[in-house]
């Protein structure tokens, strides 16, 4: 057993900082319950410091495994920690106004940071039980976040549905973990890999299926996606935005690590399953999104569809496509973060009814432009961020040379087109419809606007960052 040394604390510094910030926010909140500027500022500062610590670890090339090889810090993990903590930063800014009105801002912000903490731990776990514990650490506060809005009936309802399905998913995940542990005699991925070679035993196969199902719940893949629209519609906007981006990206990262480090030999078993999940998820997500008039619900189904796109990259994790497919997940997560956070935050700026976007181009041109950018990015039109995500996934699918991946990529192409009517339904309202009579600019939206503008610029100029980002993704993908 390895000793806990100073290096362990360095390795855990981002998580420690995130934890300390969330506790500080709570404590400061006890004494200043009304000062949302203070608590939100503290939360934002905390996430920035955490971000800085993660960047430092990345810059000095910090690597290592801790706690008996159960916890690793590598570029792959750090990359996802950056995404999680950046999302937390923007979410805190966007949440401040709403949370301040509830009077429970410290709790809301601390919960958000706790979700981030769980997600950050998750991407470093190389032990199946560690994976389970950190998923729970990220999920349990998120139940509270979804149900936080007591004034809207949908919020507790969505929270309830989320808890019930989430519990079932956790049990399934745990059951799968235990079965794999039973077969392999260890929960460590390196040791699991030695067992999951050659022909799988029936119990091992069952464990794998249950594990994948549990993950499918967490990333809202079809047929385990039913909680998503209700939970996101009920959740406060900032919570829905955050949950659709940060914990999801971290869950994909954990799944990537488990499959590539724990079960690389069983690829012929799980890759086709991923392709089926991917195809079903994209189609269901997009077809249901087409019917939505409520922007929040539409974005919820859109996030289901985008999970399908990322799963298409999982189907390509074989042969020559492996490296490109891992990079695809990395790039897509970054691209999705900037465009989807922005798209969700727009709801707090404009409204959740599709009609509230009518004529925005005339009444509030800059906000209108941001919405157009996010919608175009979600469709995947160059030069916006989503385009590069799709490029990588298609490239990986082609490179992998597997029929299942080809089919998943073909479905991605079809679904890109299928998604145009609902994303551009909003764009159409923004540009082509007459403004509504009462389009009062909401007050106190400075912080949300700041987030939205920064995210819109990042979405638009993604092409300028893609070179370095791809370099980082290239290094990270080599580690798995």
């Amino acid at each position: 057993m390895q000793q806990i040394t100073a290096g362990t604390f360095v390795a855990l510094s981002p998580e420690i900082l995130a934890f300390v910030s969330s506790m500080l926010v709570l404590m400061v909140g006890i004494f200043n319950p009304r000062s949302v500027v203070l608590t939100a500022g503290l939360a934002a500062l905390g996430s920035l410091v955490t971000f800085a610590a993660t960047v430092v670890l990345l810059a000095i090339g910090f690597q290592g495994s801790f706690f008996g090889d159960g916890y690793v810090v590598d570029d792959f993990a750090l990359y996802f920690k950056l995404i999680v903590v950046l999302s937390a930063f923007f979410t805190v800014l966007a949440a401040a106004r709403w949370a301040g009105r509830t009077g429970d801002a410290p709790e809301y912000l601390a919960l958000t940071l706790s979700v981030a903490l769980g997600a950050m731990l998750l991407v470093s776990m190389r032990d199946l039980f560690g994976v389970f514990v950190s998923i729970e650490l990220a999920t349990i506060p998120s139940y509270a976040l979804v149900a936080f809005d007591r004034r809207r009936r949908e919020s507790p309802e969505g929270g309830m549905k989320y808890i019930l399905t989430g519990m079932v998913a956790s049990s399934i995940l745990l059951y799968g973990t235990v079965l794999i542990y039973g077969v392999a005699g260890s929960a460590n991925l390196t040791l699991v890999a030695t067992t999951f070679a050659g022909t799988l035993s029936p119990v091992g196969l069952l464990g794998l299926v249950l594990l994948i199902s549990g993950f499918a719940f967490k990333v809202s893949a079809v047929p385990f996606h039913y909680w998503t629209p209700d939970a996101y519609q009920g959740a406060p906007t900032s919570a829905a935005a955050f949950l659709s981006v940060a914990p999801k990206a971290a869950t994909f990262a954990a799944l990537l690590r488990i499959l590539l480090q724990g079960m690389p030999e069983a690829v012929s078993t799980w890759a086709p399953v991923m392709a089926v999940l991917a195809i079903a998820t994209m189609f269901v997500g997009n077809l249901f999104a087409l019917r939505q008039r409520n922007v929040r619900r539409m974005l919820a189904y859109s996030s289901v569809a985008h999970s399908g796109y990322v799963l298409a990259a999982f189907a390509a994790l074989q042969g020559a496509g492996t490296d490109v497919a891992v990079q695809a997940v990395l790039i897509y997560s970054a691209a999705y973060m900037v465009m989807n956070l922005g798209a969700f935050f727009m709801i707090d700026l404009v409204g959740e009814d599709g009609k509230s976007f009518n004529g925005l181009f005339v009444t509030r041109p800059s906000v209108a432009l941001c919405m157009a950018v996010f919608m175009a990015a979600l469709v995947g039109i160059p030069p916006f961020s989503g385009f590069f995500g799709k490029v990588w996934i298609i490239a990986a699918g082609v490179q992998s040379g597997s029929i299942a991946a080809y089919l998943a990529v073909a479905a991605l192409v079809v679904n890109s087109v299928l998604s145009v009517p609902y994303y551009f339904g909003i764009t159409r309202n923004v540009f082509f419809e007459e403004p509504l009579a009462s389009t009062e600019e909401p007050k106190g939206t400075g912080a949300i606007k700041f987030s939205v503008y920064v995210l819109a610029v990042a979405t638009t100029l993604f092409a300028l960052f893609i070179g370095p980002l791809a370099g980082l993704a290239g290094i990270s993908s080599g580690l798995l």
Partner: protein
Amino acid sequence: MITTMIVFSPLIGVLLMLLLRSADVRTVRYAALGAAAVPLLTVFYVYFVYGSSLDDPSLTQSFDWIVSLGIGYRVGLDGLGFGMFFLSALLTLIAVVASWDIRENVRPYFTVLFIAELGMLGVFAAQDLILFYAFFEITLIPMYLLVGIWGDENRRSAAIKFFIYTFLGSTVMLAGFLALGMLSGPDFSIEALGGGGTLSQTTQIVLAALILFGLLVKVPAVPLHSWLLDVYVSSPISTNVLLSGILPKLGTYGLIKIAVPLLPDGVEPFLPLVAALGVVNIIYGAFVAFMQPDLKALVAYSSIGTLGFILLGISSGNALGINGAVMQQVTHGLYSALLFILVGIIASHTGTRRIDELGGLAARMPYVGGLLALGALSAMGVPGLGIFVSEFMSIMGGYTAFPVQGVLAALGIVLGAMYLLYMLQRTIFGPVKPSTAEAIDAGPIEMAAIVPLALLLVVLGVFPSLLISVQEPTVELIIAMIGGSA
């Protein structure tokens, strides 16, 4: 470096429009006019300085963009793209002049127009598949907005229809591009991919099918054209100039620049089909144009029809046909822009676009009537006008490769003459109708939009070598590439 500067020079216009927040409409228009002149003047500069040596290193630029996938920022000019590069800059300027009648949201209008110009210039300068695709798509949203915000009452559905159809085509094409680049390296440099590399013929055929589909939707080749009429009829005139003058050529240019030279073995089995589609365009366009009561719809179908000659020329695979096709891209742009602007002028001065409500325009609007006759004669392929040269070359080239299609295309010229003369007879000649009785002739600004186009058609008819001499060296390279691997 020069090429990059020209491609991104429309951003000057975008910036100006953002800065002139409180300026009056007049100032905004003149500022747009000035900004639109910048790319055009620099293209002229390139023509006179580098016209015979477009491969000059100061015109090309290449650096890594996404190293792991072999995608680079690679731009440069060659004979295939130069004519269209020039035409994009010219028609944007013309579109600015032709949009003098836009009164609402003038600043956003020009902003969007300049972004479209950036995309168009980029397509004809891109030397990398992904960069090509990116510029190809950058034109899409501006066009969607131009039609959807400033079009007529049917604009909303027309805009979204246009968007979905062409996006479907281009997404399929993107899959083809990515497969092509990933399977050969990965490398996405158009130059490096020339000749098809080591790809087997089966792979090439699959990739060619994907890419051809995307490009033919963009053209549009006839069974894939159903998005077109609504868009052409609903859009404002200045947008028509780009919609018919440049956008179809993104498709045909992609055929000549990418599909044919990069996948020679894969495209070969499709060439008879492309030639046949060209002929279908010519004949179908002529017949449907014949039956249109709306002058704008007639011009729209005429424009689809004459695109067929480009397809025929490309499919020929010989120097004559491809030279004709490359030149037809430019002459087609000139004549269709001319006719669309004339339709706009006639509609705004008489209050109608219906052919049966027009008549006697030659007497009431002599300049407009005369130029309409010139445009129509040009569309017929009358010698002495630019289109004659390019159509003739396309047909001769096409006939050498596919005699049946060649003969049918020549027959199409006769059909074209029929509907165009019939249209002229009913509009500029004949008795003066109530709607034309009070019509006044085009004003100076309107004339400024159409006269350059008419002049260029005449100049290219008399001196086609002005254009052909630029494009010929590159066409020969393409021929060598096809011949070398077929």
